């Protein structure tokens, strides 16, 4: 099935859109009224104001700019930035807060709520406090300390970094790779090293702000194309080649198409095969940001390149981050030897920023090796990938059957469920928390005005029982809030996706694993990859060659 048939973005129903606008206008009217009362002393004024002596100067900041924050966001801000007290695995414990004055301040009664975690980018379940990754990170901290304190190019290179780069390059299928301590900086500070004035950047409409900033920092001409619209890309490519630069009409030195693998706000997947065909036809370059897709998509977890079965050498710059699927921090750029050698010399982040701290590097290296089957219990990597795939499809199919509007592609682990109306944003966030489900809700201006949504991030740490329970909670809440707007039948691919199908898929992976210390043919106990406050289970096998290797290298370096 082509990508187009497996993803959908049902447009907002007309009447719902009108009611949403009326809602926002009412909020604005009340906001203005309350601001008037506050500014003229009829109501207690808790906002920051300029001191009296500067009243006649040009205003230092605009009161109007904080209108939205003050009158809309502040009233419902208990839905965001919730403090937690355990590791954010499949479930977490939230510290309860109550606001006696509608969001100006919080009180802490001292109680806790245990909730299912759908807010963390934890696609493969590596956010855990025990396991081979945690052991490796602890060992690296004891050897190298917490930070490095120097850029890679000066004194901040550890052999751990070199090993991580080799691992990344092997995993992704590229010739070489270079890592950076910050995912955002990987995009923003490396694009200027690759392109400059006289080049053209074709950027997708919904690209992340790091890509937008990186493109602006280069000084190149930026053309934005409609989201996932290949015809638009081709038209703009042809224009760029035929008409060249703006006034001089000279040809562009390089044309770079910048797309993401999976778009986290929409859950959509880029059209990689068509883009590769286009770039070869017109001799452009392709920059693929796999922040949300590396580790999360594809039969072997190697990202959208793996999912579509394309050749990684066809993509010129493969960028990704360690934050989402690997439980670490930082980013990488992989590509040809030539590209990476250039970046080692020219990258702004590599020359001026500190390098990736050792515990993070150790965590990420071990995570990669677990995925490649060289660390941890045998088959653990394949199990996690399969669990994520099954969770995603089962969750999405169940939600489609409920009748809510779900955006995105069938295999994207980011699942946006549409809310539309501003009042329901807070209601959804609070009602689901009351029932034990923690999720992220987003509204205007982060999303278009009539497309506010709740975003669920699936994880390999979630078990099928957790997913069943969450779907039940979502069913209750969406019935209560009348959020079941979908007027289409569930898509064709959801037909066979049931609990039985999911369990059968997971059993397949179990059977493919070697029995782990059990008698031949015995069932392998599947350990739930979940974060608890209990004493750590020893998931790592101390005889594991790769783990021993890591620890030995770390010990040797000390």
């Amino acid at each position: 099935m082509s990508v187009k048939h497996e993803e959908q973005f049902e447009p907002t129903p007309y009447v719902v859109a009108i009611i949403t606008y009326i809602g926002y206008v009412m909020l604005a009217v009340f906001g203005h009224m309350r601001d008037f009362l506050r500014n003229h002393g009829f109501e207690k004024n808790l906002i920051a104001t300029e001191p009296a002596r500067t009243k006649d100067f040009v205003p230092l900041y605009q009161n109007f700019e904080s209108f939205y924050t003050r009158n809309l966001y502040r009233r419902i801000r208990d839905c965001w930035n919730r403090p937690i007290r355990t590791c954010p695995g499949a479930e977490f414990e939230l510290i309860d807060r109550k606001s006696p004055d509608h969001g100006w301040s919080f009180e802490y009664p001292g109680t806790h709520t245990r909730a299912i975690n759908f807010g963390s980018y934890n696609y493969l379940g590596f956010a855990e406090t025990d396991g081979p990754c945690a052991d490796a990170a602890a060992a690296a901290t004891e050897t190298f300390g917490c930070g490095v304190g120097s850029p890679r190019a000066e004194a901040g290179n550890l052999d751990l970094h070199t090993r991580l780069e080799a691992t990344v390059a092997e995993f992704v299928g590229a010739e070489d790779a270079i890592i950076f301590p910050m995912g955002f900086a990987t995009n923003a500070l490396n694009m200027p090293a690759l392109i400059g004035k006289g080049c053209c950047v074709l950027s997708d409409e919904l690209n992340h702000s790091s890509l937008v900033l990186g493109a602006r920092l280069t000084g190149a001409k930026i053309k934005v194309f409609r989201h996932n619209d290949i015809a638009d890309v081709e038209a703009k490519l042809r224009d760029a080649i035929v008409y060249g630069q703006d006034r001089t009409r000279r040809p562009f030195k390089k044309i770079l198409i910048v797309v993401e693998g999976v778009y986290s706000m929409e859950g959509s997947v880029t059209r990689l095969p068509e883009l590769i065909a286009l770039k070869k036809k017109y001799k452009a370059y392709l920059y693929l940001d796999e922040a949300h897709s590396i580790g999360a998509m594809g039969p072997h977890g190697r990202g959208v390149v793996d999912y579509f079965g394309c050749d990684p050498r066809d993509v010129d710059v493969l960028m990704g981050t360690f934050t989402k699927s690997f439980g670490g921090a930082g980013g990488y750029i992989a590509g040809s030897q030539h590209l990476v050698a250039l970046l080692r010399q020219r990258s702004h982040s590599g020359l001026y920023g500190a390098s990736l701290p050792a515990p993070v590097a150790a965590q990420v290296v071990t995570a990669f090796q677990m995925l490649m089957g060289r660390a941890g219990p045998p088959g653990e990597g394949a199990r996690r990938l399969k669990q994520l795939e099954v969770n995603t499809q089962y969750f999405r199919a169940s939600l489609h059957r409920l009748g809510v509007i779900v955006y995105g592609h069938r295999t994207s682990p980011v699942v946006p469920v549409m809310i539309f109306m501003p009042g329901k944003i807070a209601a959804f966030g609070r009602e689901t928390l009351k029932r034990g489900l923690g999720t992220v809700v987003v509204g205007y201006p982060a999303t278009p005005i009539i497309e506010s949504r709740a975003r669920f991030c699936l994880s390999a740490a979630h078990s099928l029982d957790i997913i069943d329970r969450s779907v039940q909670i979502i069913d209750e809440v969406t019935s209560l809030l009348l959020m079941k707007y979908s007027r289409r039948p569930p898509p064709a691919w959801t037909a066979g996706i049931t609990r039985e199908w999911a369990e059968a898929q997971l059993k397949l992976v179990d059977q493919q694993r070697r029995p782990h210390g059990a008698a031949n043919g015995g069932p392998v106990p599947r350990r739930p990859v979940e974060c608890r406050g209990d004493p750590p289970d020893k998931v790592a096998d101390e005889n594991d060659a790769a783990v021993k290797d890591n620890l030995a290298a770390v010990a040797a370096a000390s």
Partner: protein
Amino acid sequence: LAAMQVGTAHSDPNPNHVYFNSRGIWATYVIFIFITHFIVLSIPFISMALAWTLTCQIHNVITYFWLHWEKGAPFEPLDQGESRTLTHWEQLDDGVQFTANKKFLLVVPIVIFLLTTFYTRYDQIHFLVNALSLVLLAIVPKLPQLYRVRIFGINKW
């Protein structure tokens, strides 16, 4: 809160540029005018002519403040302050003139004025008042010649 927008996908740093293209927003605008008119019509001691004139005036005054007086955005956009000195009209469609949105917003007050002159039976005083408010509050600020113009420096900062 700029933190609300960080991490989200936006090639356009100011959502004020594009939201007026969303589905159903033109219809909502017309619905609001109808609601205002019905409220004014419901007041028992106001004559038909006065009701229409009141609707026309209320509409022109409110849209003047909304489009041509308040500057900047009610949230912090990611454009580093470029839109802080721009009125909403100047921000719509990123300053491009003669777009569909701008034509629509120009035509609506004119249509209301024509209906009002009809329902006030072309009375002189009503006509004068409505015409003045139409021209000064609704048409002149929308002309492309007055894009980013501040007369006598009023409302500059």
